[in-house]
């Protein structure tokens, strides 16, 4: 197990690399499988120091479900945005929203912010406070810009429930 840990310090990363190599080459020929495996071993080793420690994915199933949910949300989001974009500007009700956070790990936070940005009418603007140095306090808020802000509390709740909660479970943090 320790050997496996040394060989594959970041299994998710290695898996990703393995898949991406095959995708890049459009092939599952033996030579490519071999090379993909090799690269999946070597590149994480090379870049291991270029990675701040992050919590590992604990619940893979949930992760897959999360991705699916986000994809669907994106499609729906875009359809909503069409309306807003094509409609008259005076109908817009944009606004800033501060979402209080209940997790502090960088990777899940990033995924959360990214998800919010990718989905309907919201863009992550800031994670506050800034991580200026080791003594900075942990992230507390996510500042959003919303294209059409109807019900602020509902929006905050939906984000926390739809995205933050699953992420906390996936990373167990």
């Amino acid at each position, binding site marked *: 197990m320790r050997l496996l840990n040394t060989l594959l310090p970041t299994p998710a990363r290695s898996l990703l690399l393995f898949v*991406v190599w095959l995708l*890049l080459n459009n092939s599952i020929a*033996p030579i490519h499988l071999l090379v993909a495996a090799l690269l999946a071993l070597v*590149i994480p080793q090379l870049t291991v120091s270029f*990675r701040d420690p992050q919590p590992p994915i604990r619940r893979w199933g949930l992760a897959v479900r999360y991705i699916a949910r986000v994809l669907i949300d994106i499609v729906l989001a875009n359809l909503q945005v069409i309306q807003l974009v094509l409609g008259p500007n005076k109908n817009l009700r944009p606004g800033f929203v501060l979402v209080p956070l209940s997790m502090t790990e*960088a990777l899940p*936070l*990033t995924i959360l912010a990214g998800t919010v940005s990718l989905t309907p009418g919201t863009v992550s603007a800031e994670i506050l406070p*800034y991580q200026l140095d080791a003594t900075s306090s942990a992230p507390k808020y996510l500042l959003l810009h919303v294209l059409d802000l109807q019900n602020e509390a509902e929006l905050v709740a939906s984000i926390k429930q739809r995205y933050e909660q699953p992420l906390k479970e996936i990373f167990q943090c």
Partner: protein
Amino acid sequence: MSTLLWIVVLPLLASLFATTARHWQRSKLAFAVAAFPALALLLLLPCGPAIFSGEVLRFQAQWLPLIGLNVSLHLDGLSFLFSLLILCIGLLVILYARYYLSAQDSMARFYAFLMLFMFAMLGVVLSGNLLQMWFFWELTSISSFLLISFWSSQSDARKGARMALTVTAAGGLALLAGIVLLGQITGSYELTVVLSKTEQLQQHAAYPVVLLLVLLGAFTKSAQFPFHFWLPNAMAAPTPVSAYLHSATMVKAGIFLLARLYPLLSGTDLWFLTVTLTGLATLLVGAYFALFQHDIKALLAYSTISHLGLIVLLLGLDTDLAAVAAIFHLINHAIFKASLFMTAGIIDHETGSRDMRKINGLWKYMPVTATLAMVASASMAGVPLLNGFLSKEMFFTQTLHQEILGSLSWLIPLLATVAAIFAVAYSARFIHDVFFNGEPIGLTHTPHEPPRYMRVPMEILVAFCVLVGVFPQWFIGDLLTQASAAVLGTEVPEYSLALWHGLNIPLLMSVLAMAGGIVLYINRKHLFLFQAGFTEQAAIYRFDQLLQRFEQGCRRVTARVDNGSYQRFAGVMLLLVLLFSGAPLLELSSLKGNRPALETDPLLMAGAAILCIAAIATVLTIRQRLLSLVMISVVGLMVSLAFVRFSAPDLALTQLSVEVVTVVLLMLGLYFLPHKSVKQSSPGHLVRDLTLATAMGVVIGSLAFAMLTNQTDTIAGYFLQNAKTGGGGTNVVNVILVDFRGFDTLGEITVLGIAALGIFKMLTGIPRFMAGADGEGRRWALDPHPLLLAVVSQALLPLALLVSVYIFFRGHNMPGGGFVAGLITAVAMILQYVAQGVDWVKPRLKVEYSTLIALGILCAAGTGVASWLFDKPFLTSWFDYFELPLIGTIELASAMVFDLGVYLTVVGSTLLILANLGKVTTRYRPMHKEQL
């Protein structure tokens, strides 16, 4: 006849010897040095009988036959005479200088220069090759420069030396032109050959040019009017130098040249007129000014000028015996003038002054010297029983028998007599003003006779004055005949060297000159008063001023032409580009050639429109720099898309990846540069630049169009045919890069590597400064490493590396390759720097970038060298296919190793640049605490 060679070389050896004998005792040194010319004299004298029998001795050796310069020595009567003078007077001067120079003066240096000069002078007179003669001719200028400036701490000496050098070297250059032209006309530089081509030369259209050039050389050297002014200023030299160079030898080189080329150049009206008139003018000017000099040496210098004029005048006369008279006077002048200069030196030495207004009545203190000086100056004045009288009488005779000026020819004897009157007058002044005329004024110590041996040279010379004056035929008759024969190139006509030729006009002229001279001297006050009316500056100051004015003029021209403005330089260059590329277009009947054109589509038009608008926007926004940068990024993107559209995917990839690194770099640059710039160009400039820019655009665009429609067959077919079979890859562009033209690529990565090294060099020790705010005056934001960016960039790094590997390996067969792969890696690393900063990356990246560059270059070059093992030329590629069980066919190629070199170099270079640029400021950012 290697004797001749030895005669020339011995003084050179003496010179070399003197430089090594700096610590010898003075007398010993003088004797040792003198031994060399003495030996040369001993070698020369035995040649006498042969010379007197009319023989010519030669020595020849090949040296630089391609330019016609050979070692060629030629001893005939003329050169024998001159060699004799040079060696004999040289020996006397060595002896004299032993006593003349003070203890502080470096005697070794003096002798070294003097012997160098003697070597040069002997070379001139013994040359049998015109180029070789010029060689020595210039050496005399150089060595005389060294001798005149011997007391280099004195301003006069430096200036006088430079003036002499400038004038004589200018003449030397003219002479060189004359000689080369002569050589080109006659087909040889050998004296014997050249001298036999008189007719050919004189009928040649360029004869006047040759003559004038040669005369320029001769006249400057021999201080002929109007080039005479350097000689009086050369008197800053130690007196032995004057005695040797400025009376007996160097100034006679010009005359020697005239004499040497006499058979070739003379005989034409042009020769007669120029030479005669120059001589006459010099004779008069020298004699006149000599009278007014208060410095003894200056008087002698002007007198020398006058006598040189006399000799030149004689050479210009169209009578039979004029040349003989010239040679005779040349000998006599050398003898008496050398002794007179020595006198001047003794007086200077003993009294500490040369000013005749202060020096008076020396007869009492140094009677022997005075007697000798009086005899010599009597000879100078042309008093009977002395050698000067004889040659001056010959001179008078010849002036009477010429017809150069046609019906005005009588002017010449008349003016000759006038000059002689002045000669008598200044000789009288020299005797009376120095040795009599009351008591000396303001001398620090009582003068007395010089050391015994300091006088010996004078005594010998004066003895010669008398002996030649009384027994001319016996003493120098044969020598004169042989020398004259050499000058004339034919039989010497009858002449007699008797003291008494009966009562005739020349005698009358002599008497007239004597009487007139005495009368003139007695009544000199009026003349001095008259002359004092001309308050002229000394030539040296005028010359110096002239030079300075010239210098200032040059400075103005240089400053105007090269004003240090880049904009002008670039403008001129672009203008040239415009002219050179535009002019042929004007001749072109139609830009359009016969190649079928591709059709245009709206998408392409849109792309072109975006590109052009973005380019123009770049220009318009140039003062808001970041905006301009954004605009140029659009241009870059569009160019990349154009490459895709026109079937160049490799180019698109490269362009894109270079683009982003460039933008990053420019932004790093922007941080250090002002973010906005003030308007600088005046409207006039702008219109000018706009015109140039538009014209350039039109011309280059037209050329592009003409080029596109006039295509020819290229060598491309070969690459397409051989890429797979010979280079082992299907991406022909890549095969060209790593194989067909791999050498270019090797050079290219070298350039990249060097650029990185150069940049590192520039960044070390760069003065640091920090902009505290952006262009709008906003303080910088607080958050150095936004969280999202940091996390995502960490995640992207392995992916980017994977893509690099992919791009690298597919390069040979598909678009991609080491360069693009390297840039992707580099960009991924840059992203780490941008996202997380130098302090985060540095400890994690333990690679020395310059080592990467070196390894890359070694890898690429090593691939090339490896082909030597297979006895193939550098960079010969190798590839093969291997069948592996389960895995299939794989291709291995040396090109991959080469491409790996490219990859390493690119990564190393890019990171060396960017990481170091980042490091420059990181430690100097004062922001955090202040803002927190």
